[in-house]
């Protein structure tokens, strides 16, 4: 439904010759120091990343703050203080999460302190990853990635889909358990990219000296991960604001001036490589 209204708004705007210009705005700054928390417990490991809030007119700082007390405890008796290194706090014993266990995070750094709880669900295995080009709005093609998976019909699951292209996240998408009980469930992800297999000259791959993200080329590799998360994690990512609509995402962190999430999740991953234009023709 959100997609439908998005398209309608674009269409209505375009039809009436809407005009667009970039504004220079005088942004306020946050009144108090805000700590950004990313807490993760999964079958691949346990780690927490802390950052400070950045000004809107600055580039985002993602280097990871040191100097905090960070600990994780589980309902199965696991308890550990995480250690700092390479921009993150990690388990010194390389502990991993266990499905069904409820984990508690505690973070304290200066005046910022928070707690959060999360229960790790069972994994949802990926069956396969496929793609398709769709023709929309005349000659513009949309690249759709289809992730087929085996959903557990007996549990209420929430999923986060992450798509990396050439090692960089290009889509992050979340969806609730929709109670589907088919043998193969799938979710399509619109990457909003153009089909440009033929374009292999260097200058066409760049814009203002940076790699173009709106064009997919033959040989591009895609890594897809499917996280099965609890409801609070889903709420955080589904309420996230990527377009300045004026609300903060709903966080499961309880404490002083902390934003972010703490999530215990199960993850499964797949990879694929885009065929070149000639290979794609042969496949047809």
């Amino acid at each position, binding site marked *: *439904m959100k*997609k*439908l*209204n998005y*398209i*309608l*708004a674009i*269409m*209505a*705007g*375009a*039809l*009436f*010759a*809407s*005009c*667009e*210009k970039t*504004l*220079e*705005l005088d*942004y*306020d700054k*946050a009144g108090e120091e805000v700590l*950004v928390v*990313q807490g993760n417990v999964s079958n691949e490991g346990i780690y927490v990343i802390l950052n400070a*809030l*950045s*000004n*809107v007119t*600055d580039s*985002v700082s*993602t280097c990871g703050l040191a100097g905090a007390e960070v600990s994780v405890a589980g309902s199965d008796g696991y308890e550990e203080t995480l250690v700092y290194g390479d921009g993150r706090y990690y388990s010194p014993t390389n502990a991993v999460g266990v499905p069904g266990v409820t984990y508690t995070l505690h973070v304290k750094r200066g005046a910022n302190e928070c707690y959060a709880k999360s229960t790790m669900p069972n994994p949802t295995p990926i069956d396969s990853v496929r793609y*398709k080009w*769709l023709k929309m*709005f*005349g000659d513009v093609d949309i690249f*759709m990635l289809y992730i087929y998976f085996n959903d557990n019909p007996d549990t209420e699951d929430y999923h986060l889909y*992450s798509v990396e292209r050439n090692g960089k*996240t290009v889509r*992050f998408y979340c969806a609730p358990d*929709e*109670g589907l009980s088919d043998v193969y469930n799938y979710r*399509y992800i619109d990457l909003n990219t153009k089909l440009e297999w033929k374009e292999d000259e260097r200058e066409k791959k760049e814009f*203002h000296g*940076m790699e173009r*993200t709106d064009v997919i080329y033959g040989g591009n590799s895609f890594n897809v991960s499917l996280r099965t998360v609890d409801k609070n994690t889903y*709420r955080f990512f589904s*309420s996230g*604001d*990527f*377009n*300045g609509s*004026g*609300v*903060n*995402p709903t966080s499961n962190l309880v404490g002083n001036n902390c*934003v*972010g*999430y703490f999530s215990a999740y199960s993850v499964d991953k797949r990879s694929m490589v885009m065929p070149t234009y000639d290979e794609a023709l042969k496949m047809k």
Partner: protein
Amino acid sequence: MFKFKVLIFVSILFSTALANAAKLRGTVVAAEDGSPLPGASITIKELPNQGVEVEEDGTYKIEVPSGKYTVVCELVGFTTLTKSVNVKQEAKLNFKLESDVEDLGAVEVTSRSLHKAVEQTQMSVAHLEVGDVKKMPSMFGEQDIIKSLQLMPGVKAESDGSSGFQVRGGESSQNLVLLDGATVNNAGHLMGLFSTFNSDVLRDVTLYKGQMPAQYGGRIASVLDVSTINGNNQSFQADGALGLLASKLTLQGPIQKGKSSWLVAGRRTYIDLFLKATEDFKDTKLNFYDLNAKLDFKLSQKDQLDVSFFNGQDHMAVNDLMAIKWGSTIGSLKWRHAFHSGLNLNSDVFVSHYKIREWIDIDGSMNSFDGINTQASWRENLTWKAGDKHTFDFGFQSSYHDVITADWYYNDIHECEERYAWENNFWVNDEWKLTKRLSVLTGVRVTAFSLLGSGPYYQLDDEGNILSTTNYGKGEFVKTYVNAEPRFSANYKLTNNQSVKVAYSHTCQNLHTLKSGITSMPTDRFTMSTNLLKPEVADQVSAGYAISFDNEAHNNAYEASADVYYKHTDNTIDYRDGVGAFDKIEIDRIVLAGQGRSYGLELELKKNFGKVTGWVSYTLSFTESQIDGINRNRWYTASNDRRHDINIVAIYSPNKKWDFSASWKFYSGQAMSLPVGKYQIENQTYYYYDNRNNYRAPSYHRLDLGATRHGKQHKHWQGEWAFGLYNAYGRYNPFMISVSEDQYTNSGSKATLIAMYSFLPSVTYRFKFK
């Protein structure tokens, strides 16, 4: 003994006065088609303090001492008529007024609205009347009454070019819009670019800005009461307009000459034809049409029957990919019976049905959304003029509501939420002229809103999760809300040309709307009050001052008014943090309710004579909300808050051939939310907000120009050309401002202003055939 003498003296005095009193009565109708002309003024030159306004049915009555008088009948847009009469005990004097407008019938912001404000007991009322709006600049060449209303103080455009309007801090969904007494849900075409109302068929437009008589209710911000003309009961007539984007045609004529008539009016856009010529939008459909039809029968001297029908539909589609259709169908039957000259009964039944359907098909995966809002009502209103002092209105309205807030298919999932309700309203209203200078209007309206089964109703926790569900049987009472809504308005005339007013009203609303975007859209979600959502209520107090100035040649040559108001609302709804309109089928789960307040000042100055006429209006307003669970429970600036609005309108009529007009609007920045920081998670940038609506968008200003060239009057034909230029200096006014990621800037973020329109020229040819 003394008391007895006084009684005798008073009795003698009273009977003497009665013996000298005489009655003058009559009718005022348009010479052209015999239709009544309510609002015309009857004054007597020899008795400057005596004067009345013509009633809705075109009749008037005035008590005068016996004698010879010169009676003047005036109405804007018509030639003033003066007649002599010798009144003994009772005399009858009828007026047939000729139109003094060579234009082809449209809407005008009347020049006597402010003088009416001096006279009228009810305060905070704005009138639009049929006249010559084509002198005014128009968008796409289409005259629009709602855009004309937006030029008045206290009435704000919802967004650039929108026919959505906001009154005294209210949302557009808090306006009750009535067409011939029937409720209109969604009064806009093409996402609000055009209003539902075809200006060629409108007779009278009245806007009550929150202070309204008890006969009106159901919304807390305003009531817009629009009535349509009756057909010409004397001869056949055709009126029309050919524009670049839309054309319209109105046909009317007598069924039985002088007694009954018919009228059909249609309007359609053909934007699609232009789109087909473009490569990008050749597969796009974009059009609307609307149809007004009316039959009226003068059954007897005391009985009038009107049958009205309206159908308006919009259609937007992109080939086989997606489509959205929405529209209203309204049918109404009105019977007016006059028992005698002071006692009238108005009986109405109407059905109003609004439907929206949208769907999108991506790679065979069909998603669709349907919404329906249907109301069927029976209304009775008895108006009793008890002497010269009191005018009572008694009445009731009984309505059945059927609302489908959403019926959607999303992948393989089908969800639907449908609600039913039975609403009963009772009212009594008295306009009491205590003295020559003081009049008061008091009333009360009682609303009983009963939510009916079938369907599930929920109990929720603080986060909106469903704790329990109760299923009710069909027709079973779920919950009843009863609200008593007192109304009061007083007018004290300091002199014949000055008055001060105060008013208070308590109003309630049981239909709630959640905007799906930054402006009202057909895709907005709506719901009735539920077991969890209580009726929205508003208390408004206001005070005002109005003055008119005469010069040597003209009455009311200049007029001015000032109003202040304060309004407090309860149970108004807003989104919970982090959810959108389509996140849950159960609308109770995505909203929270709280309180609001708005206050402001409205000023207006008008010039009504000479070759240049026009007005200046200014609105100062403040609107805030406080809802537990939103913005850390603190008061925040409402998203529709805008501090200053200025409108300047000028019409220049140098000769009978040409009219020129210009309007200039200035709005200070609309409230909006801007982030105070940002952070990154999973390579996605999130923006951090401290307070809702903490920032102001850039100010808005726009100049519109219009010119009309009237053609020669032929025996059966008259035509004219109307030229317009919307946003003459092409300013990029803010429609939407967003902050988003941008990989090509150093900061990774950019703020973008989207403007809907640059300058828009238009040309329209209008004609009249009879």
